[in-house]
């Protein structure tokens, strides 16, 4: 009789499962950073035939972004349909009001480090704190799944660590490498590296040994760093440089040719100068005798082999076929994808921007690596389209346009042809790379063709971006400006310093900046040493806003800041208490310096941006709107990101949740 009971139970459960709505497929291609002005120009010039056809068929419109227009903030709004006050992601960087230190906006600070039992020098954690995603609200995919719609989401930003969900979701931007960093590369070289402490990677000075004593150096034995050495770290300790597990990497140079054999674990690659390896697996042993190995995947680039030895190793990505940390929901979805397409980039920002920023990579080096990312994206799109069934909802995120606009804008302004050269202009490389950004737009056009070739004829297709782009010509050290104007005071005897290092005299500081667009009052009762009384906050903000809006560039008297918004006026109340008090909207061409973002106070408050990070969007939302295209008619605007969320829900007959202010964008 047991089988009968089982059958009845199964039938009962099946009848409880919602019937999927009988509607056609909806597919969204999310293109980070696609700008309406550049897109329109390239479509007009006939360079983007597929995007142009889509615009003709359905529509093309600007898409309002969020404030501030930062990718994790914007994509979180798209995912939840809520403004930042609803989902709680206000900037790439948040601050801890007790310690006045920058913290990641992706994960809330862990206050309880947990405990561990120490045995023979090993710490075995007991009740280690779970690292959670800081994003609030309910992702649209969970709401669709509740209504019986199958959803598959690929590389969505801001979804790491992946919140619990039954939907199939691969995390994108914000996903860490195995070290827990956002792109920590390794540079193996026997050459001196100037200013190596400032580099964002691990610079390893190696020796090329002449093992057969024939006068030709032939062998390099090195190690690559991987996961933190968790069993040797007391609870709560932040890993130092020597607190990471390592895996051996050997390089063997051919005596007669500029070719190297790279050996990592059981994988071997042969690389000529200028070539990238395929993915190679490395394993990091956390316990003796391989009792607990953590796997990662890494690619090597033979930049130079003789006379100098320079080999670059990508950040060690989490291996999708045996992830050391979850990168998908359900957890085994990553393994399914690995089975379908082999190893793939799992790091949130797969482009090696750090090496280019650190001037270790030339533009040619960088371009070769971006080509690998593009190939990876094509394969992912093919897998996504092959898995998409009629009626399913699908989403794929593409990072290329955003990162290449950040890195390559200095070679030629694609939005303002004829603009004067960027302060980071490099004449030698510019002639060769001036049109690179156009090439990445064309790649999106190709992606679109691949998608449309597989999409059912009745499907609804949306192509959208989270924001547009502007040049980043001048960088503003906002904390320095606050110092110069009496809002922030350094301790006696200091003219420069670092907020997190304790250099600020909080008894004489009314406001400070941590984050790209964020200003916080030193508010009594909230900040540890706050002095601005809550009753005075509004007047203080009014005074500071007025001064900020009046800031002019000393070079040409141009406006630097276009808007200053109070979070109390632009954000929903749910998590507004965590928000910056003021959101600074820089005018086109201006942006926060990295130093000020992390709370540093330097000599002067504004300077030319000579960094290769030369395009930007961390500005006033009105100067960097995104785009929306569809194969269905788009209703008269204006539209914004959260409207797209509501449109997706509306397509499947799902009503917007409380707090979602968007409206459907497609004409019925």
């Amino acid at each position, binding site marked *: 009789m047991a089988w009968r009971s089982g059958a009845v139970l199964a039938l009962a459960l099946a009848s409880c499962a919602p019937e999927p709505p009988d509607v056609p497929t909806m597919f969204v291609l999310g293109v980070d950073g696609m700008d309406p002005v550049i897109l329109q120009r390239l479509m007009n010039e006939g360079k983007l035939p597929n995007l142009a056809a889509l615009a003709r068929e359905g529509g093309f419109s600007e898409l309002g972004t969020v404030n501030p227009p930062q990718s994790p903030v914007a994509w979180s709004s798209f995912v939840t349909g809520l403004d930042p006050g609803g989902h709680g992601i206000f900037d790439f960087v948040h601050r801890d009001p007790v310690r006045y230190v920058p913290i990641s906006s992706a994960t809330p600070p862990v206050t309880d480090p947990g405990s561990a039992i120490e045995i023979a020098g090993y710490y075995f954690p007991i009740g280690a704190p779970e690292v959670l995603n800081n994003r609030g609200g309910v992702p649209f995919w969970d709401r669709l799944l509740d209504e019986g719609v199958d959803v598959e989401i690929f590389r969505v930003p801001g979804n790491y660590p992946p919140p619990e969900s039954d939907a199939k979701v691969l995390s994108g931007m914000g996903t860490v490498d195995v070290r827990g960093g956002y792109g920590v590369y390794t540079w193996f070289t026997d050459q001196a590296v100037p200013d190596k402490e400032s580099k964002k990677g691990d610079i390893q000075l190696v020796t090329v040994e002449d093992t057969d004593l024939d006068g030709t150096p032939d062998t390099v034995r090195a190690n690559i760093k991987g996961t933190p050495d968790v069993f040797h770290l007391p609870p709560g300790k932040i890993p130092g440089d020597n607190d990471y597990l390592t895996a051996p990497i050997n390089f063997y140079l051919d005596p*007669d040719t500029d070719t190297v054999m790279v050996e990592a674990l059981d994988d071997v690659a042969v690389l000529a100068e200028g070539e990238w390896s395929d993915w190679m697996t490395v394993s990091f042993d956390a316990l003796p005798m391989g009792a607990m190995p953590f796997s990662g995947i890494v690619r090597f680039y033979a930049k130079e082999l003789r006379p100098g030895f320079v080999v670059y190793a990508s950040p060690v990505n989490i291996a999708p076929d045996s992830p050391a940390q979850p990168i998908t929901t359900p957890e085994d979805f990553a393994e399914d994808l690995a089975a379908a397409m082999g190893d793939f980039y799992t790091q949130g920002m797969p482009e090696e921007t750090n090496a280019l920023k650190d001037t270790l990579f030339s533009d040619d080096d960088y371009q070769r690596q971006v080509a690998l990312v593009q190939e990876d994206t094509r394969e992912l799109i093919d897998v996504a389209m092959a898995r998409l069934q009629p009626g399913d909802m699908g989403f794929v995120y593409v990072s290329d346009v955003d990162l290449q606009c950040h890195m390559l804008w200095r070679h030629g302004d694609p939005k303002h042809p004829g603009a004067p050269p960027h302060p980071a202009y490099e004449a030698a490389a510019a002639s060769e790379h001036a049109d690179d950004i156009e090439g990445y737009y064309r790649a999106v056009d190709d992606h679109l063709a691949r998608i449309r070739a597989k999409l059912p004829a009745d499907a609804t297709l949306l192509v959208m971006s989270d924001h547009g782009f502007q040049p980043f010509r001048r960088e503003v050290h906002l904390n320095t400006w606050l110092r110069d104007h009496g809002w922030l005071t350094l301790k006696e005897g200091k003219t420069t310093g670092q907020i997190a290092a304790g250099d600020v005299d909080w008894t004489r500081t009314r406001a400070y900046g941590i984050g790209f667009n964020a200003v916080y009052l030193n508010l009594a009762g909230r900040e540890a040493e706050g002095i601005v009384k809550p009753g005075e906050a509004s007047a203080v903000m009014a005074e500071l806003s007025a001064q900020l809006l009046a800031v002019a560039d000393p070079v040409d008297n141009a406006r630097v800041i276009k808007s200053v918004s109070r979070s109390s006026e632009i954000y929903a109340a749910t998590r507004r208490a965590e928000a910056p008090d003021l959101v600074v909207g820089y005018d086109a061409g201006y942006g926060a310096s990295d130093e000020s973002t992390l709370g540093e106070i330097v000599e002067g408050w504004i300077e030319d941006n000579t960094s290769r990070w030369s395009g930007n969007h961390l500005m006033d939302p009105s100067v960097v709107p995104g785009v929306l295209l569809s194969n269905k008619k788009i209703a008269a605007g204006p539209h914004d990101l959260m409207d797209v969320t509501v449109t997706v829900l509306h397509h499947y007959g799902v009503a917007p949740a409380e707090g979602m202010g968007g409206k459907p964008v497609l004409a019925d």
Partner: protein
Amino acid sequence: MDSLLHLCGVVFDVVLAPLGHDRPEFDMLAWPVIAGVVALLVYKRVSNQKGIARAKNRIQVHLLEVVLYRDDLFAVLVATAKALGQNFLYLAYNIVPMLVMFAPITLVLVQLVAHYAYRPLEPGEPVLVQVELADSARSRAREIQLELPDGVTLDAPPVRTTDGRAAYRVVATEGDHVLRFTLGGEVQDKALAVGGENRKVPVLRGHGLDAVLYPGERALPSDSAFQTIKVSWEERGLGPFPSGEAGILVWFFVFSLAAGFLLKDRFGVTL
């Protein structure tokens, strides 16, 4: 030894893949069952069936003692120790049949791996061919000559290491190619399967245990200057079955064990 392995390979080339290499279902299902049945028959023949039955009975008796006398700690400890002792005896009874079955099962398994674990290269797909020299020739890697047939080209210059290895990245057009390696007066070939239908893909040429485990080609002579010549093939998917060397191995053992357990009563075998 080489002749025996070669003969074995010829026989399996005939009997394996009756539905073609694109349809692994028959071999992946039939051979584990055949192995399971043969193992049962061998087990029945060479094992001490009475001893096994006795050991199993006594294990049950001692476990029952543990339950019945659970209030008496000493009795529980004694019964547990006796059950453990009978377990060791039971394992000992299994050693002989396992040793007898090891060789034939290994032979079948390595043939399944040779036929199904890897796929031929795609035309134009780069692949690494690695040569390892014997200890006696370690210092001579620079002297290795590779003769490429028509349709095969080097994709990058080779790397020869000081510890007696050489690696070549090659690409090839469709066909069954033969790479020819020369060192001093010795010439050795390595097959390279490119394009076309799935087929037996020889992974590695070696001698000794390597030749047993990778039976796709003739073994290298025991006095060869070459230790191994290996191609880094890509694994092929096998539909619903686990793939790759490890997948086939796990599938083979799990399914043959399951078949053995299901059929043991029919064959009157006590396991």
